[in-house]
Structures are given as C-alpha cells and as structure tokens.
C-alpha cells in the first residue's frame, strides 16, 4: 500500500468534504502556496464564539485538498480560541501520513487559511 496516497487521502481528494461557498459568512481568508501557486480560501460562519460551519474553495494537490477536507470535520464546532491555538502537529497528526519537508506547506495551507480568518495572523503554522 502507498505510504502517502492512502485510500482515505485519495477519497478525501476526490470527494472533499465542506468544499464550496458559504453565504452569508462571518470570516474569510485566502492564501497561496508560494511553491506551486495553489490557492485555498475559506468561509466561516460563527455562532457563540464557535465555528458553526465552514467551506473551503480553491484548488490544490491531493495532500492539501485531503488535509482541508479532513480538518473541516474537526473544525466544525470548535471554539475560535481553540482554533487560534492549533499548531502544525495537530494537522499532521490528523492527516496520518508521513509528510516530507517540501509537502508540509501543502498539508498546512488549510490551517494557515483558517487561522488567518480567525486571528488575522498570516504566518505558517509552526
């Protein structure tokens, strides 16, 4: 079996969850992966300090799309305060595959976008 392209990764890539637009929304952000030009945006609806719902849009590789899809399920219902504290390990663990240094940005792009929408911080998750 492939280390990286596991079945569930490819499944999320081909049929990503929570992709599309969300209108109206309370928060949004859009970021690029400078390495490949991929673009990922997010729309977030907030209720009582929590992410009530969210949608990603844009295009990317299997890793970045699967990461966004997998994360989207976890992010729903999370408090904004907790979202602000999410770090790279959270995402990498959640993804469950070995991510090389070069592909790390692919895996972390969605978290960068979400954290950017919530906190305004545009740094890469560390």
């Amino acid at each position, binding site marked *: 079996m492939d280390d990286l392209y596991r079945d569930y990764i490819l499944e999320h890539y081909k049929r990503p969850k929570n992709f599309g637009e969300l209108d109206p929304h309370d928060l949004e952000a859009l970021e690029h992966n400078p390495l490949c030009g991929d673009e990922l945006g997010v729309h977030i609806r907030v209720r009582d300090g929590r992410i009530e719902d969210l949608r990603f849009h844009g*295009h990317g590789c299997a890793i970045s799309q699967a990461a966004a899809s997998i994360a989207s399920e976890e992010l729903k219902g999370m408090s904004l305060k907790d979202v602000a504290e999410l770090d790279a390990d959270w995402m990498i663990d959640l993804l469950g595959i070995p991510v090389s240094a070069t592909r790390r940005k692919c895996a972390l792009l969605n978290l960068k976008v979400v954290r950017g929408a919530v906190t305004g911080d545009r740094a890469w998750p560390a």
Partner: protein
Amino acid sequence: MPPVAERTLEVRADFPIFARRFDGRELIYLDSGATSQKPQVVIDALADHLQSHNANVHRGVYALAQEADAAYEEARQKVAAFVGAAAETTIFTKNVTEAINLIAYSWGRANVGAGDAVLITQMEHHANIVPWQVLCRERGATLRYLEVDERGELSLEALDAELARGDVRIVAFAHVSNVLGTINPVAEMTRRIRAAGAISLVDGAQAVPQMGVDLGSLGADFYAWTGHKALGPTGVGVLHGRRELLEQMEPFLTGGDMIASVDFQSASWNELPYKFEAGTPPIAEAVGLGVAVEYLSGLGMENVRAHERALTAYMLERLVEVPGLRVVGPPEAEHRGALASFTLEGIHPHDVAELADRGGVCIRAGHHCAQPLMRCLGVGATARASVGVYNEASDIDALVSALNAGREVFGL
C-alpha cells in the same frame, strides 16, 4: 528517424552525481531546466581555484593575487567567447535575476517614464516580469504583454502592432520559454525592435545551456543568462550589453571595485565591465563557469542541441501514450527547447512529481515561476520534464512508467 540511441552523447560518466544511489536506485534526473548537474571538471576547477589560487582580484600586487586575477579574467574571456560577446561588455552577476534587475534599475529608471511602455510576453519567468512591474509602477509607465498563441508561440505581427503604438521603450523576452519550451525568433524580433527605436533584452537562461548562441547574429541590446543551468556552479550569472548603452548607464550596485575614484560626496565610475561589478565578485564560480562553457564547446553545441532535440522528440512521442496527459507548447521538437510541461487528468502536478519520484524520476511541478502564463494556459500548475546532455532515452522510459504507475495509485 534514426533510433534515439544513435544520436546520444555518452557523457554521463563525466557527472559525478550519477554515481549516487537513492534507496539503491540510480538517479533519473529530468529537471535540468531548474538547474543542471555539474561535470567533475567544473567542480574540480572550482575547488582547485579555492585550494591553490585563491586571493581577491583587481588590486593585489603579489603573485597569488595575479593568478586569481588572471583566472577570473580568463573566465570572463571564455564566457564571452562562448556566446560571441566581447569581454569588456560581459558582466558577472550572481544569477540572471540580478542581471535583469540591473537593467530594469539602471537602464529602466533613466529611460522609461510616464506614458512609456515596457513590453514583455505572456511566457516570461517571474525574473523577467516582476522587475518590470516595479519599474512601471515607479515611473508611471505601462506594462504590456505580447500574447502567446495556442501553439505556445509569439506572433511577429502582434509585435509589430505593439511597436507601432510608438510608446514601447524596451521589449524583454525569453529566448527559450522555461514552460512551453518555445524557441523565440530572437533575430527577427530584435530587428523589428531596433527599427522601432526600442531596446531589446533577451533572457537566455534556458537557451545558452542547450543551443549555440551567437550574440552577433541575434542582435539583442542586452542578453542575460545564468551559470547554474549551463553546467556551471551556483552563484554566478552573466549579462552582456551593447557598449554604448552600458557606457551611458549609471551603475546599479555600488561599492568597491566599480569606482574610479571616491570623494566624500561623490564618486566616478570605473571602466566596463567593472562599473557593474560591485564588491568581491563570485571569483571561483566564474572560474567554474569558464570551464563549464569550455566543456560544452568541447561537446559542440550543435551536438548538444541534436542530442537534446532527439530526446525531446522521443519524450513528446512517449508522453502522449499516457492517458489523460496533455503537453503544452509547440508540438514539434524542432520548435522547442529540451523540455515538456504537461498536465495529467485527475492528478495534481504536485502529486505527479511525487509519484514520479517514487519511480526514481526527478521532475518539477508548480507554476515554474510563470504564474501569468499559467493563467493564460488556464491551469494552476504543470509538471515539467527537462533534459540535459547526460540524459538518455531510458530516462524518458522511466518517466512514462512512473506516470503510468502513478495513475494506478490514484485509481485511474
């Protein structure tokens, strides 16, 4: 058409990296468009210079400094001769990016103003786009793009039409596109540009490594390229320019070596080419590049081109066998440089490159520093395989196998 093998240069043994094994496998390097591998003679020359001839240049009286000086200037002469340029108008920079920035700052700021236009093409590398954006914004000038047609080529009529508008001060374009592979008709373009009273800058980063370049017949006012793609070390690039232009221009980087004399409030400039080489230059790197072009001359640039063209033709032939694969750029190998950029349906280029790597094949994926072109092509990214003198037909076969295997991983 004779089988590819017949026309293959047999030089792989000259390149030490191919002795390496990756998880027991040989290196299959199809990314020379990003940077070339280096023959042992180049690495040895670089190391030998640092080991036995190292001193700073231009000012030392002692014997060792004179050796360093002579080595550096001899490298300049070799590099100039390689493309039919004069040594005094051959400037060492750190890469082609610096060379283009030099022109945009020094020539551009003095010659491009409000109401003027800079003309580039849709197939440019960011190195030949962003400096012009910066210049145009600063000077209130307009940046226009020559269109790329569905074959991935420029139209001379479109160039004429742009020039006829009368506001174009400089036309900056690639000799060979790093994405499409297109070989642009430089001589015909520069003739038209000169006739229109504009200046031409040609980005030869992809051309110099793979075909005979003779600046005399190309007629460009400025021609720039980069050492690391031409079998040379990192850290060195080259700018050639027409003497009158270089002489009129203000310097770009300022400091030691580029001055004739410095007073408290003002300075006067050294003669060419030193006026444009501020500070300690990439001495050992230039020496290495001198040996690289000597090595290429030894192979014969017509043989290099024939070898790479044959491989490219074979690559184009084989790639179409892969279902869902679409190559961008001119369909015929005669009209393109030694590369093929492509998309593969159902697999993002990043994953294509990752899957190729599992087959031990090194290719590049992304926007290739040409985002405007990606937009024109209607894609976010492509995968790109590019060949060098050390490649063989079996490398292409390995790529095709890896792509087919990759499609299976993705359930296609």
